């Protein structure tokens, strides 16, 4: 016990105000590792401050601009990309200048078989080989044309942070993970697993090439309970925290600001057994009939869900990812009478039994509640819903193995910077997470992927959106904003959708300058 007791340090009362420190309370650190390829995208909250990406998405246009790559070009067949690495960018801890070999190393790690980063699996299929003919030149050759490689996979919205290859080789991967070397403005200063991450401005701060951050220290605290995070905001123990939609009013009344990430995620009900390939098809399900799927969409008052559960923080949608070309797509209205008629027409006038499985994610803690709400609406048109809670690990293995054929489940869609990536993940029969696929759709997807002309691409994309909507491929609900509480310390903060939280770019509010 004596050993344990020495861990305690003196502390008292409220946190003293420190303008140079910004504390972010987040639900989880996920894998809690510091190399881009050893975990998922939730870690971007802290990794983005430590690593640079080849491209940086312009928040205004959504198009990629120069990052570690100063410029790039793609061959007219869309198969070969050449990136020129920005000269003079220094790695932290004196590891020298960033070279094309570091970028090549980082991409190769992301696509190695054991990597678990989000884009690992599609990138593995996409990349044929990587070459570094010159320390400044990176050449990536693809297995099929992708005119959106930079935007979709290599920009700061994704997970390919550039790591110092020499450091990983010298220190070994495990040590490098706890003592990482990137070229970003912050360095890892302290880490306590599932508890605290402290980042500090790099010691050679003259080598920061990005806009200089305003806060000397960024502290991340893992706080799973949302009520506790709200309490931390109220006491001043945290400056930024994702909160629940029900807390928005309460938080605003206490004088804190609420900033929302626009269209951060999308609650959606996936219907099992709709992938017509690889033993994942189940034609006996009532919802194998398109009329039943449409009925399942018409039955739900999606606007009521947005208004009451999400407190208006979202827009009704006919897709699970915000794609500009689909913005004008009319979603299914709330029309229970039509739902009943469609069910009767399909031969289910008295409904049918279905199991709806739900799990909570981050963001997406509301998914079990959404599931209950959906169940209420479905029961109202005669569908006998039984709901079940499930954990993501079980569902993931059922989904990817094709076992999830006879039930439906809540899931969330993400904003993809490249719509094509979203389609490949969710609707391509080759993807393990495909939720709906027909030969017809597959042909449309392939045609879109192989089309290089921007105007025609857009037309094909719109066509796909209409098809997914008309087929009621999923029960699409809404694109939802994600609310963050922000303390008075937080001034200008540019947040865009597509996973870029940009904590490192937050400016202090005027009057509390660092």
């Amino acid at each position, binding site marked *: 016990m004596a050993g344990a007791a020495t*861990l305690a340090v003196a502390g008292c009362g409220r946190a003293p105000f420190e303008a140079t420190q910004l504390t972010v309370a987040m639900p989880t650190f996920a894998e809690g590792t510091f190399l881009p390829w050893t975990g998922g995208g939730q870690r971007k909250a802290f990794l983005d401050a430590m690593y640079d990406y080849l491209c940086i998405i312009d928040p205004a246009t959504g198009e990629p601009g120069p990052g570690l790559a100063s410029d790039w070009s793609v061959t007219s067949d869309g198969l070969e990309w050449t990136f020129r690495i920005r000269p003079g960018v220094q790695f932290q801890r004196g590891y020298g200048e960033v070279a094309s070999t570091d970028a090549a190393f980082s991409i190769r790690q992301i696509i190695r078989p*054991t990597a678990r980063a989000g884009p690992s699996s599609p990138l593995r299929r996409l990349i044929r080989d990587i070459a570094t003919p010159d320390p400044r030149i990176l050449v990536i050759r693809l297995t099929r044309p992708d005119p959106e490689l930079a935007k979709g996979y290599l920009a700061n919205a994704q997970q390919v942070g550039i790591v110092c290859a020499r450091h990983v080789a010298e220190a070994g991967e495990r040590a490098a993970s706890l003592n990482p070397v990137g070229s970003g403005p912050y360095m890892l200063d302290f880490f*306590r*697993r599932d508890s605290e991450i402290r980042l500090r401005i790099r010691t050679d701060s003259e080598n920061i090439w990005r806009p200089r951050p305003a806060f000397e220290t960024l502290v991340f605290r893992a706080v799973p309970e949302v009520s506790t995070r709200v309490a931390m905001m109220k006491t001043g123990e945290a400056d930024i925290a994702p909160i629940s939609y029900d807390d928005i009013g309460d938080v605003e009344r206490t004088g804190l600001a609420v900033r929302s990430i626009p269209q951060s995620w999308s609650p959606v009900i996936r219907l099992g057994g709709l992938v017509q390939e690889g033993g994942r098809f189940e034609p006996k399900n009532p919802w194998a009939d398109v009329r039943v799927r449409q009925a399942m969409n018409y039955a739900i008052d999606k606007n009521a869900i947005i208004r009451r559960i999400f407190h208006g923080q979202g827009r009704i949608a006919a897709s699970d990812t915000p794609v500009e070309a689909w913005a004008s797509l009319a979603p299914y209205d709330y029309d229970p009478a039509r739902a009943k008629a469609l069910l009767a027409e399909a031969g289910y006038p008295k409904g049918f039994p279905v199991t709806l499985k739900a799990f909570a994610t981050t963001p997406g803690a509301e998914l079990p509640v959404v599931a209950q709400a959906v169940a209420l609406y479905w029961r109202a048109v005669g569908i006998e819903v039984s709901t079940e809670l499930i954990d993501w690990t079980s569902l993931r293995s059922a989904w990817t193995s094709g076992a999830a054929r006879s039930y439906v489940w809540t899931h969330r869609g993400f904003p993809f910077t490249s719509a094509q990536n979203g389609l490949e993940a969710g609707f391509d029969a080759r993807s393990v997470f495909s939720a709906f696929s027909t030969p017809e759709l597959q042909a449309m997807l392939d045609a879109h992927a192989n089309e290089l002309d921007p105007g025609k691409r857009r037309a094909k994309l719109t066509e796909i959106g209409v098809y997914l909507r008309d087929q009621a491929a999923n029960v699409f609900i809404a694109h939802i904003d994600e609310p963050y509480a922000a303390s008075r310390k937080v001034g200008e903060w540019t947040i865009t959708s597509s996973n870029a939280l940009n904590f490192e770019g937050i400016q202090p509010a005027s009057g509390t300058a660092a």
Partner: protein
Amino acid sequence: MMRIVLSRVGEALVSLLLMSVVVFFLARLTGDPVAVLLGDGATEADKQALISELGLNRSVFEQYFIFLGNVLQGDFGRSIMGDQSPAFQLVLERLPYSLLLASASLVIALGIGIPLGVAAAVNRGRPLDVAARAAALFGQSVPPFWLGLVLIYIFAVQLGWARTSGFGGLANIALPAFTMALFSLAAIVRLVRGAMIEALTSEYVKLARAKGLPERDVIWRHAFRNSAFPVITFMGAFFATMITGAVVIETVFSWPGVGRLALESILRRDFAVIQAVVLMITTLYIVMNLMVDLLYAWLDPRVREAA
């Protein structure tokens, strides 16, 4: 005395061995480790290589003995998460925090529970007694997560006396330790009160009073000394309650202990870590009970003489 020690230690070792069997088979049941360990891009050859690397192609009994052998060398296998740290190391990292929280709770439970129980017994039937019993009943009826959130709201948000969460100083540990302690505290009040009432009406206390000893001596030196045994007996149970409560309390107060590690590893099917956590906790519990048994034997003259 030596015989008692040896037989108790032997019993503890048997319990641990049984536990290792239970843990091994439970973890095996939780899912296919190969599917969980491999990335999405793995081939059939990768799969076969991993199966033989993990020894999953051997018989279950062989697997168990290999597991046991490894465990005795402190090797519980690797976590499937991120950088695949050794499971044992992950548990060791968290253990000091859990022990700190459990000890603080035990101190609170005993420090408040014993005096309150004694005071209730001495003032039997008076308002203090009624209040203490009501408080004890409350402590055993309130779900810990709910109590924790209410305490955060009152003491951290409204009054500003304590920190909401996280590891740090006294202000950080106060609320989780109290929340964790309350259930055991309530049990201690009831135990001590019951035992004290019995002791205070016994012959030897009457005798001590008759001898004219000051009331304080009568209460603490004579009556309480004999009432302490039930508290010692249940010490192991208190400890178990605290470790169990840890999963919930560490989540509410984001305390970096083994409870959250257990929760997260179960949700991720990280079976090496599950095994390490469960075995570590049961070992602690069994050792704690062993110490209680031995302490009891040492304190209780009847047991000591019988040996």
